C-alpha cells in the first residue's frame, strides 16, 4: 500500500439521530484522514459526536450520508455481512468497560477474534502481545479475577491480535485509576511505536490525549481543531480555545 495513502478517509460524514423536530445531527459534515502508523486522539465535550464518529469509522454504525474508506474499502452502505467481515479483519476495538467474555480466560479472550475468524494466530505476535500485556501467570485466569487495568490491557491485546488496519479505543481509561490508566496508555503507545499500528482514541482526559501524535477536537458534530498533541498543557489549551470559540 502506498505509504502516503491514509488508512482511514472520511469525507463529509453526517449522522442524524431521530426525525423531524427532535432530529439531532451528531455529525455535521466531518472530513478527516488518518495516516498509517499515527496515534490520533479525538476529544470534545459530551454530545460533541466523538463517539459517534468512532463508531462509524469502526463499522459499528452507519453514516446518514458521506463516505468512509477503511483500508481501501468503502464502508458506507455496506451490508451486515460485509461490515462484520470488516470488523473482524480490519478493525480492532477497545471499549471503556473492557467487554471481555467472562466465560473465557484472558488468553482465550485475546485469541477470540482469530477464533471467530477461524484463523491461526501468528504465534510470534501472540508472544509479543502476551509479553506486552504483562499478565504473568494470570493469563489463564478469567476476567473476573483480573483488575480493571489488567482487563483493559487484555482488551487491547485482543484488538491487536488480528493485525487490524486500525484500532479504535473508546474512552479506554474512562473507568480506571491513574496508575492503571498509565499502563493502558503506554500499551496503546507501544502498539503504534513497536507494532506499527494506527490507533484512534476517544477520550475526555487531556493527560490521555497527550500521549497521541495528533488531537482532533469535535464540537457539535464538527471538527474545530486539528493539531499536534504536544504536552497535556498544550492539549488543555486546545480545549480551552474550543470552548470559548
Amino acid at each position, binding site marked *: 500500500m502506498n505509504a502516503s495513502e491514509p488508512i482511514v478517509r472520511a469525507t463529509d460524514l453526517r449522522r442524524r439521530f431521530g426525525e423531524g423536530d427532535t432530529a439531532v445531527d451528531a455529525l455535521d459534515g466531518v472530513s478527516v484522514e488518518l495516516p498509517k502508523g499515527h496515534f490520533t486522539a479525538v476529544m470534545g465535550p459530551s454530545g460533541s459526536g466523538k463517539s459517534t464518529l468512532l463508531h462509524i469509522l469502526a463499522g459499528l454504525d452507519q453514516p446518514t450520508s458521506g463516505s468512509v474508506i477503511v483500508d481501501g474499502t468503502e464502508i458506507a452502505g455496506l451490508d451486515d455481512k460485509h461490515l462484520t467481515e470488516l*470488523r473482524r479483519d480490519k478493525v480492532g476495538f477497545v471499549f471503556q468497560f473492557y*467487554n471481555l467474555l467472562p466465560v473465557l480466560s484472558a488468553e482465550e479472550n485475546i485469541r477470540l477474534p482469530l477464533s471467530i475468524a477461524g484463523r491461526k494466530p501468528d504465534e510470534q505476535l501472540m508472544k509479543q502481545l502476551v509479553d506486552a500485556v504483562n499478565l504473568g501467570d494470570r493469563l489463564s485466569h478469567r476476567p473476573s479475577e483480573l483488575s480493571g487495568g489488567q482487563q483493559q490491557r487484555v482488551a487491547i491485546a485482543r484488538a491487536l491480535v488480528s493485525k487490524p488496519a486500525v484500532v479504535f479505543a473508546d474512552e479506554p481509561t474512562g473507568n480506571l485509576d491513574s496508575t492503571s490508566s498509565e499502563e493502558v496508555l503506554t500499551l496503546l503507545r507501544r502498539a503504534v511505536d513497536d507494532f506499527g499500528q494506527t490507533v484512534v482514541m476517544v477520550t475526555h482526559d487531556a493527560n490521555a490525549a497527550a500521549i497521541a501524535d495528533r488531537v482532533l477536537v469535535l464540537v457539535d458534530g464538527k471538527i474545530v481543531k486539528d493539531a499536534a498533541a504536544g504536552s497535556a498543557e498544550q492539549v488543555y489549551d486546545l480545549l480551552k480555545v474550543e470552548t470559548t470559540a
Partner: protein
Amino acid sequence: MTSIALRNLGARKLRTFLTSLAVVLGVMMVAGTYVLTDTIDQSFGKIFAEGNRGIDAVITSKEAVETDDGQEPSFDESVLARVRGTDGVAKAEGGIFDPTVSILDKDGEPIGGNGAPTFGASAVPEPFDALKYVEGGKPSSADQVVIDKQTAGRGDYSVGDRIKVVGKESAKEYELAGIATLGDVDSFGGASIAVFTFDEARRVTRKQGKLDQISIAAAEGVSPAELKRRLSQALPKSVEVETGTENTASQKEDVGEFIGFLKTALLIFAGVALFVAAFLIFNTFSITVAQRTREFAMLRTLGANRRQLVVSVVIEALVIGLIASVLGLFAGIGFAPAINALFQALEVDLPNEGTVIAARTIVVALVIGVGLTVLASLIPALRITRVPPVAGLREGAVLETPRSGRRRTAIATVLTGLGVVAMLLGVFGVLSPGEAWVGVGAGAIFIGVALLSPRLVRPMASLVGRPVERFRGVAGRLARENAVRNPGRTASTAAALMIGLALVSFVAIFAAGLRGSIDAAFDKTIQGDLIVTNKDGFSDISLEVTKAIEGIDGVAVASPGRFTQANVAGEKGSYVTLVDPETVTEVQTLDWEEGDDSLLSGLGPRDAVADEKWAEKEKLEVGDTFKTGVSNGETLTYTVRGTFVDRADFNGDFVASDANAAAYGEPNSVQQVLVGLEEGASAGAVQKEIDRLAGSAFPTIEVRSQQEFKDFIGEEINQLLGVVYALLALAVIVSLFGIVNTLALSIHERTRELGLLRAVGMSRRQVRRVIRWESVITAAIGAVLGSVLGVIFAVIMSRPLADEGFVLSIPVGTLIVLLLLALIAGVLAAIGPARRASRLDVLDALAYE
C-alpha cells in the same frame, strides 16, 4: 406493589407469554379430560335413558361372572310366560340383544372397530321400541334388516340396498328396510346395531329358545318399585329384575368404570405436563428474580419491606396463573375433541354429543393452574428476602444462588432414594394403591435428580460439548461455557425435558420388552402353522369356522380355543382358557412345570391345568380341587392336574376342557382357531382357502401365519404406544418452552457480551450457532438423564414381571432416535432466541446496561 407486578408482566411480554403457555397446556389437558369424559358420560346416560323409555321394569340374566367384554348370558324363554302371569304386568315383550354380530360394508369388511360392539337385536314391539326410524321402517321378514344411522353413513347404505350381516351363522344378505336412531340420539355409544325380526335375530345369534331381555310395562296404579317387588318374588333367582331407572343406572355404572379408567389415565398424562410446567415456572421466576436484584434492592432503599417484595412477585404469579388457567380452560374445551380423535385413531369410538362443561371442571382447572403457578413461584419469591438494600448501588449485582451445596445434595440423594423405594414398594404391591405409589416415587426421583443435576451439568456439558467445540470452534466453546455458567439454571431447564424423555423411553423400553416376551412365549408354545382369529384379534368368531377349516385340503387339525372368565373361590374374573383336548396338543404346548402334554390331551371335563403363579396365589397344588362359578350360574369343581409357566399370560389362570363351553356362555363362539397342516401341505394354499372363507361365509375372520400374528400383536402394541407418545408429547412440548424461555432470559442477561462478539467480528450466523449449541447441550443433558431414568424405571417396573418371563430388552436404536429427536428439539427451541440474539443492534447491545 400490585401495579409494579402488573407493569412487570406487561413489560416482559414474551416471558409472560411463554410461562403462561406452559400452564395453559397443562390446564388444557386437565380441562379437556374432564370435558371429554363428562361428555361421554352424559351421552351414554342419554343413550341408556332413551333405550329404557316407557319401560317400567327390565328382566335380564343375572351376571354370574363379570366379564371384561360385558357379554351377558341369555335366559330361557319360559321366564317370559311367568312375567306375563305376574299380577301388575300390563305388557311384557322378550327381546334378543347380542353383541357379537358384524355389519359388513360394500367391500365385505366389518364396519366399526375395536371396543364398541355391534349388536344383533330383535325388533321390539310398541310401546317399548326406542328406535326412531328416520328412513324406512321395521324389518318385516327374515330377509330384512334395520341398521343405525351412524353405521349406514359409514357404509354408505341407504334403504333398499343389499347389506350383509354375520353373526354366529355364516354371513347372510338382507334388504335394508330402515335406518334408525335411538330417540333423538344419533349414536348408540359408538356401537352399531342390526335389528332383525325376532326369529331371525335368534337364528343369527343362535339363541333359539332364549331371551336376552324382557321389557315390561306396569299396569295402571302399580309403581315400578312395586312391580319389581312382585316380579322378584315370581321369577327364578337366575334372572335380575330392575326398574327402568335402575337398569339405566346400572348400565351407566358399567360404562362408568371404563370412563373412570380413561379419565384417570388422561389425568395422569395431564399431571405429567403440569409437573413439567411447574419446573418451567420455577425456573423462569428464579431467573427473573435474580435479574431484577437491583430493582428489588432499589425498592428496598425506597422503603419497601420484604413482605411487599415477595407479595409483588406472588401477585405476578397469581396473574399469570389466572390468565393461563382461563385460557387453558377454553383450550381444553377445544382440546377434548382432539383427544377423542386420538381414540378414534385407535378405533375406539365413544359417543360424545354436545359439550359438557361441569362446574367441577372450571373449579379444578382454575385451582390447579393458579395453585401450581403460585406454588412454583414461592421459593424464588422468598429468595428476594435475602437482597440487601445496598445491592441496588452495586454495578451488576446479581442474587447469588444459594450455595448450600452439601445439604442440597444430601436432600436430593435421600429424595431420589426414597423415590426408588416408593416405586419398588408400589410395584411389588407392598404399599397400595401400587400405581399411586409408583407415581409418587417417580415424582420424587424426578425432583431428586433435578436437584442433583446441577452437579452433573459441568461433566455432562463437557461430554456433549467437547465434540461440538472441536467441530464448531469458538461458537461451540462459548456454547458449552454458557451452558455451565449457571448450572442450576441449565439443570432445571434440562430436568423438564428429562421428565418427558424418561417417560417416553420407559414406555418404549417396556413395549419392546413386551413384544420380545410375547414373541418368545409364542415361539415356545404355539405350534400351529396358522392362527385364525377375528380381524381385531380378540372378538368372537363362530364355532362353525373350525368345521369349515377342517374341511380344507391340507389341514390336519383345526383346534378351537376360547378365552373366557369365571369366578374362582368367590373372586371375580379369573381368566380361563378352554381348549379342545382331542386336538390341542397338535398345535399348542405349555411350558410345563408339573406334567406334560398328555395332561392336555387327556383333559376331562373336571380337570384343569393351572398357571403356577395363579396356583400359588390360590394356594392350589396338583391334586387339589377348586370351585368355579361360571356364566350360567352353575358351579364347576375342577381338580388341578398340572401346572405350567405362562410367559406372556396367553392362557390366563387355568386351562380346562371345552366340554363345558356352554356353561361358560360360549357354546357357539370361539376366539381363536389354531390350524395344523398335513405334512407337505402348502401353508400358502391353505391360507388362501381360509381367506376365501373370510371372503364369503365368515367375513370377520382373519388368518395369519405365526410371523404375521406376531407382527399383528406388535402392530397393536405400537398403536397403543403411538397414543401414549402423543399424550406424552405435550409434556415434552412444555419442556421445550422451558428451553426457549431460559435461553431468551439468558440472552437478555448477556446482551452486552453478544454486542461485543458482534463488535469483534462475529457474524450473525456464528451468534446463532452459539445459542443453538447451548440449546442443544441443554437438551442433550435432559435427554441423556431422561433416557437413563427411563431405563431405570423400566428395570424397576419389570421386576415383578420377570418371574412371568418378561425379558427386558433395551431398544438401543429407539433410544438413539429419541436422543437425536431431543437434540433436534433443542435446535428448534433455539430458533427464536438465536434469531433475537443475532439481530441485536451492536451499538445498543454495547450501550446496554
